[in-house]
């Protein structure tokens, strides 16, 4: 019990913005009467959210941290099933029980020696936003490469543009360049890419990992394997790595692609 880093927190929804049929942005603060200060949280870490009033989805849902602002924390939730739908339908004032922070975050370089590209799509932009903010605060210059199905599915663009340059691709060509994230012309500018960070659907992350490898750039990806405990106890969320099966919840969710077996 000495110096706990993880906490179980009773939190309150400050705002619930359902800005897209599939996505809701929840901002949360510690519930009145509890310690208002959030524990230290790093970009790439996640939280485990108990689903209120849902007897059939009794396991918590792992959600990555979108950003932390003082004593408020934001979670971008995608409506994927019954549990996340409950979260998307919450209103301000609702209570949530949260275990946080969990996992290891992204590696932020001490100094910039080349481009730092943050590539992602869908709900995957949430941890990239947090990462971009931290990089900017550290005096680095991150750039985003964001892919979506179409213009209407591009999320939090304004927030990302405040952090750094945003390169966009859409599957239907309705915004940015036509195609998927790895097709964007920015990858081929010739300037050295120091490191790539990716969070998105598995096929996107695998494609970005291969591209980064071919460009000689270091690459970190954030996995979303299905989890039960989030604490390294149940061993359900394992990913095969060069060290054998390891828990994504404690050894990840961020992995350097050199640790994974994707490029074999």
């Amino acid at each position, binding site marked *: 019990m000495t110096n706990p880093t993880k906490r179980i927190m009773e939190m309150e929804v400050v705002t619930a913005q359902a800005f897209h049929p599939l996505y809701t942005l929840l901002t949360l603060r510690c519930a009145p009467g509890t310690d208002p200060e959030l524990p230290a949280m790093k970009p790439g870490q996640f939280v485990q959210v108990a689903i209120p009033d849902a007897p059939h989805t009794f396991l918590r849902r792992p959600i990555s941290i979108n950003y932390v602002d003082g004593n408020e924390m934001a979670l971008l939730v995608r409506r994927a099933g019954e549990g996340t739908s409950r979260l998307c339908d919450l209103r301000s004032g609702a209570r949530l029980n949260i275990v946080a922070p969990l996992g290891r975050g992204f590696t932020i370089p001490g100094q910039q020696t080349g481009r730092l590209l943050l590539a992602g799509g869908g709900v995957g932009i949430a941890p990239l936003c947090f990462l971009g903010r931290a990089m900017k605060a550290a005096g680095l210059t991150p750039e985003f490469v964001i892919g979506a199905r179409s213009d209407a599915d591009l999320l939090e663009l304004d927030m990302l543009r405040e952090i750094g340059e945003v390169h966009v691709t859409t599957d239907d060509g309705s915004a940015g360049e036509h195609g998927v994230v790895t097709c964007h012309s920015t990858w081929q500018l010739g300037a050295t890419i120091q490191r790539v960070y990716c969070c998105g659907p598995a096929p996107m992350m695998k494609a970005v990992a291969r591209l980064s490898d071919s460009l000689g750039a270091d690459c970190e990806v954030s996995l979303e394997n299905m989890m039960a405990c989030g604490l390294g*106890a149940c061993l359900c969320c394992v990913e095969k790595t060069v060290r054998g099966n390891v828990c994504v919840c404690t050894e990840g969710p961020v992995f350097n692609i050199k640790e994974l077996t994707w490029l074999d």
Partner: protein
Amino acid sequence: MARLSVNIGGGLTIKNPVLTASGTFGYGEEFADFIDLSRLGGYIIKGTTLNPREGNPYPRMAETPAGMLNCVGLQNKGVDYFIDHIYPRIKHYGSELIVNVSGACVDDYAEAARRIAARTDIRAIEVNISCPNVKEGGMAFGTTCDGAATVTRAVRDAFPGTLIVKLSPNVTDIAEIARAVEAEGADAVSLINTLMGMAIDVERRRPCLSMITGGLSGPAVRPVAVRMVWQTAKAVKIPVIGLGGIMDGRDAIEFILAGASAVEIGTANFVDPAVTVKIVEWIDNYCARHGVDDINDLIGAINQ
């Protein structure tokens, strides 16, 4: 405050009846940020085998109504790694440490138990003859009286401390298996391990788990577990440790009333990492509300 200490066999007394179920509590240290581990009756280390095991491929878990399926497959670094690297780190927690031991063959069980006896101060082991997720050993031993008796006899010779045998519910008559291991010197039985189950992703027409089938746990299995504890407690003289879908103090008392001397908390740890201590407190409060001075007076105490 009521007396909460209970005997779990072989002369071993634990400070209260709340233990954790193997495979749901890691090595305890994963929960040290949330609870004071010394407040538990004890905790059961996840399935340990003689040799390291990688476990089964991902996906290993599927959520089901009021429960979950898993097919982890006893991933662990082996008994020597446990003794040399993990045990020194966790033995100071002030809680009774019980190691769950599994094996692919009878000799593996016995050798792992022998090493624990020789190189640690651990006073109790739980022998897992009921894991549904491994190809060899595991549940194969737990579904026949002969198999269960053979493993128990071999481990009994290898381990002088308290020997708990964890039983499989995937049998026709669990009481018969309990009697078979009691006759071979088991000090206690714990039940139930997970129920064999299966779930299918109908959109993709694929099983949800890499091994197709897995073990069902969580509140969905609780009534089956309570029934089996009740049947077993009537059939044997040794202590019965009850588990299966215990989510709170009420559920724990239900197992004790059915005849369990102690309980193990499993899947609930995934939902609330602090649930075990809340259950200890709830039990104490229940005893106060019901004027019970000694938890032992509640074991099997249902009115019929």
